[in-house]
């Protein structure tokens, strides 16, 4: 629209687009260990029904995905594949790290072969703690991600900057990093 080329966007238009984006998320499932069972319960079962949040868990490849849920133990051997698949995703892209292993290594904190957190190789937007987290926790992580998307300054993204909030409030900045269970949902 011309505005994009100049890296500027009116805030109301940004909010409209952000709302559209946040309710049509395609999630790429990266199940690596037992957390994938809980992710499967959250994404594929009618009991939790992730589609009511506007999330479609069925992209055929990372090239169609808006965000990825890394659920499970990332090993040093798997880490290059995680990074490569993340790089194949189109911008804008987001990462939810699910479970203690993906967050920090979890029970394998002293292992010779486990990456101590997927945030060492890709930027993580939302952390979902738990071993494994319940499906509700993952759903809360998705809701937090939607809030993050709604409050994102897309013009800054197009200018190549890091994640920038539309409204910078002390509460939002204090909430970094965003962890499920770390604060109230609006």
């Amino acid at each position: 629209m011309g505005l994009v080329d100049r890296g500027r966007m009116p805030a109301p238009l940004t909010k409209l687009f952000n709302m559209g984006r946040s309710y049509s998320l395609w999630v790429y499932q990266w199940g690596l260990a037992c957390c994938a069972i809980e992710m499967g319960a959250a994404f594929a079962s009618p009991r939790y029904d992730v589609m009511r949040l506007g999330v479609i868990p069925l992209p055929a490849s990372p090239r169609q995905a808006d965000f990825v849920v890394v659920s499970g133990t990332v090993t040093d051997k798997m880490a290059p594949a995680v990074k490569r698949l993340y790089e194949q995703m189109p911008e804008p892209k987001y990462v939810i790290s699910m479970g203690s292993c993906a967050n920090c290594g979890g029970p394998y904190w002293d292992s010779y072969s486990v990456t101590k957190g997927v945030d060492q190789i890709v930027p993580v937007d939302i952390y979902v703690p738990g071993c494994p987290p319940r499906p509700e926790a993952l759903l809360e992580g998705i809701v937090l991600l939607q809030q993050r998307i709604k409050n994102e300054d897309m013009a800054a993204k197009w200018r190549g900057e890091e994640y920038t909030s539309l409204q910078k409030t002390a509460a939002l900045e204090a909430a970094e990093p965003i962890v499920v269970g770390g604060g109230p949902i609006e």
Partner: protein
Amino acid sequence: MVRLSDTETQDEPQALPGDGLREGIVDSLRADLGEHLVDTHLVPQDDLWVRVSADAWALTGQSLKAQGFEYFCFLSAIDWMPSPYGKGEDDPDAEPSEPDTEIRQGYAGGETRFQLFARVTDVGRHVGVTIKADVPDSMTMPSWIAHYAGANWHERETHEMFGIGFDGHPDLRNLYLPGEFEGFPLRKDFPLLSRMVKPWPGIVDVEPMPEFDEPADEVGAGEGRGSDEADGDAS
């Protein structure tokens, strides 16, 4: 009948009547291997351990396959040396005890720190046997791939985890570890750097155990609530 330790069975006959099956396996192995069959440990009606010399490792595989042991369960190794770093889950505040350096091999004995072991099963006769061999200082053993194709990845794993080479293996690349990994993680003297920097956090109970000091009448009230719920379910 399962004996808990080999000391209980030493004074007893090694096979009760009726375990001619496993005795027969030992006999036919001895016929093939001769003096290369070093030691056996037989728990009647239960299981059989056989220790062979390293030179006869490949011949043992051939002999077992010919006897009908067609199912290859696994192949791996043991480092019998006690960890020089002690037990990582001991209380870090406690006085460190003298490290145990004595090497004790398990069933059927042994003479070296590393032992290779494998298990094969005869699904027809429904019997399995565990084969062990002392790994010589050259840290190289013959490969079993010629007799058991399934040994391929097991030998790769044993190679990367223990540093034991296999003569005749076509492709000893790392299986689990990244290609540039240095060291052999399943050796007891492989240092876990994280544990050296920080003692095991699980030794400390972050929260005290919940206390159960409810008065007796509250317990009674709890039972009453339970029966109310049961009534509610029934209605």
